[in-house]
């Protein structure tokens, strides 16, 4: 069965503006969504990512690897987390993405090097 990566949009801005209670409330449906889909075997793995401002990039500059503070591309919207899912086809993957209780989702097929 094909695999897809669901990439969830997150933003440091949004995170900063939430109170502790608001965050707890926002996470409840997300946790339930994650648990349900893990139990049915759709989600094969995934994590939430730390904030963009905590990113460190290692870039190749003139052949040497250089450590730089920050992400590759600074932007308001970044990947805030990801889930690896296994479903029949893109329509099923889109249906799962639509059921995500958070914000925007990018669906990317995983390249199958075995094929």
């Amino acid at each position, binding site marked *: 069965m*094909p695999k897809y990566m669901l990439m969830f949009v997150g933003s440091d801005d949004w995170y900063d503006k939430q109170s502790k209670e608001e965050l707890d409330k926002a996470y409840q449906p997300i946790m339930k969504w994650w648990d349900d889909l893990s139990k049915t075997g759709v989600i094969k793995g995934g994590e939430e990512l730390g904030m963009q401002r905590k990113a460190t990039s290692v870039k190749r500059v003139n052949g040497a690897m250089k450590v730089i503070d920050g992400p590759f591309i600074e932007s308001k919207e970044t990947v805030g987390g990801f889930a690896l899912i296994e479903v*029949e*086809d*893109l*329509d099923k993957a*889109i*249906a799962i993405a639509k059921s995500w209780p958070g914000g925007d989702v990018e*669906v990317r*097929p995983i*390249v199958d090097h075995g094929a």
Partner: protein
Amino acid sequence: MAAVFHEEAGRLTAALVKRLGDFDLAEECVQDALVAALEHWPRTGIPDNPGAWLMTTAHRKGIDRLRRETRYREKVAQLEEAPMTEAGSMPDERLELIFTCCHPALAREAQLALTLRSVAGLTTAEIARAFLQTEATVAQRLVRAKRKIVDAKIPFRVPEGHELPDRVGEVLAVLYLMFNEGYLATGSRGAMDRDLAAEAEWLTSLLARLMPDEPEVLGLLALMRFNLARADARFDAEGDLVLLRDQDRAKWDRPAIDETFLLVGRYLRMRNPGPYQLQALIAGAHADAKSWETTRWPDILRSYDALLALHDTPVVRLNRAIALWHVEGPEAALAEVDSLSRELNAYHLFHATRGELLRALGRTADARAADARALELTENPAERALLEKRLARRSR
């Protein structure tokens, strides 16, 4: 023979895509079969069951091609396992094909090109000519779309249940855009473009045959047919655009209009209104009128009100304002149009409509300014010519 090809090319492509899961290979086999038919049929005559003949040939050519080319080796088994040669038992899988080509995960331009290529059987060169693009651009767009279908696993099937309405809407949006691309450009680009509108009408009538219970499909088909029935009156002898109000109604295709009303009756009985059905009702009210003045404007206004209730957009409000003009007068219509200035300031028809209303109210200088603004905003040659004529007339 052209009619047979039109009908069978999409059928063959659909059947082969289904079995092979490979658009390129399917299209190559179909092409081979059509070439073989072009060679044989003029000598032997068109066979009794041309579809079965083509299917058998495509199947045989497919196996030949697969054996020759190592890239397709594992697919030989798929074709040999699933023969499609029993005459008379050919499933029509074009509906699956249409939904795959118009999948929302594909860009609009790719949906258009792919539908024309795979379902209607147009060549890449024909598609490129219709959209005034280079063949290389269209070819690349097709390659990318087909690759995405395979790599992202866009399924070859008709969507089910709650997914269906949205996906039908997506298909209809593709077909309507295709139609307008051909219909609105007529006259400015030459005879070629009529074909794009005709292709869209053909595809929509195919969809209506495959999904006879979808009222919006019938609605779009009726909308297209009302428009096509007036096509001959839309341009004057010089090739300039003639507005509906000024058209020679004797040039309208009366039998086609009458027949389209049967279609309207069919969807009205389904009692499930939608935007295309309502737009077709409006087009029908125009097609039915003896003159601009005796048009059933209150009916048209009612249809616009229903359309707004489903789909409140500034452009619908702008079009509704024309009906409002004829029911309640130019002042009421102008007030409505002016309320849209923020949203539609960059839309040429907003200014053109304002120009007409201002002229009806005797505000000539304001009308000229509005027409000039409209002219600045449109690149469509037919519409430019019309506005230039209007401006020139009043400067004399």
